[in-house]
């Protein structure tokens, strides 16, 4: 009886873990979907959005700025990550040095993710309320 209870508990745990793992990765973005819009979505619907020349120029300039800064962030990230990799590869591992390296990697990653959010916010602010409403409707329909 005790054996059966253990097996049943294990089955429940495994089933829960499997169900959690089956969650589609797109659902993680639900908090951002319909609130911020990627540049590709906007440019694909630019005719229906009736983007003005000024808006197009603003979005284009923002994309170029982000691309340049993202390249810089990538370079810093690559440097920090490769140093961390060397530390982890050692045996025994220097815990303090690894954690310090991890902090630097996280900082570089945060800068890149912050840049992504900054881009989305700046693009949204370049749009009118009507355009944002249209993009929300398009996002709700599951358009890319």
């Amino acid at each position, binding site marked *: 009886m005790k054996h059966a209870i253990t097996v049943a508990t294990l089955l429940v745990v495994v089933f829960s873990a499997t169900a959690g793992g089956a969650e589609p990765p797109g659902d993680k973005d639900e908090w951002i979907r319909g609130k911020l819009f*990627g*540049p*590709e*979505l*906007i*440019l*694909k619907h630019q005719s229906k959005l009736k983007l003005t020349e000024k808006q*197009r120029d603003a*979005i*284009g300039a923002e*994309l*170029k700025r*982000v*691309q340049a800064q*993202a390249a810089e962030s990538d370079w810093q*990230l690559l440097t920090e*990550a490769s140093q961390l990799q060397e530390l982890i590869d050692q045996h025994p591992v220097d815990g303090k040095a690894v954690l310090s390296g991890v902090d630097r*990697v*996280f900082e*570089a*990653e945060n800068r*890149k*993710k912050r840049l*992504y959010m900054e*881009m989305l916010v700046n693009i949204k602010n370049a749009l009118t309320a009507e355009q944002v409403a249209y993009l929300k409707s398009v996002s709700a329909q599951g358009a890319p």
Partner: protein
Amino acid sequence: MSGHENRSAQPGSGSDELRGDDRDLAAALRAALASRDRSVRSARFAELWSQVGRPGGGFASRWRPAFAAGALLVVLAGLTWTLTDRTGHRDADGSTVASRAQPANEKARADLALARELSSPDYWRVPTDELLAFAAPPLSADLPSARGFDVSLEESLL
């Protein structure tokens, strides 16, 4: 002059003498006119004037199609020159519609490609995104082969 002299000399000779003088004068006038006409040719202008109304005749009528064709050629050449020159001028300035549209299209394409790149999740992936998602290592245990795997009914039930 002899007539006048006769009239002044014989005033009472009658109207026959006067008529004879007039006839002489008229004859002399006709002779003079005939002599002038012989020496000076008849008016050429009158002949030319008469040819104007004649169908198919006349200088202007003969060359009218040639003039029309020439004028048409001149107009066409002028139009061609104007259009060619204008295009070339604007090309040199880089301000023609075509030359303006091309960079605009290229810019739009470049922006769209960049937007696609910056919208990709791979572009924003960072090393620790997968930190907590270690995959389970593949099973390395040796399994018995199906051929030599003889299990009795009793063993399988146990």
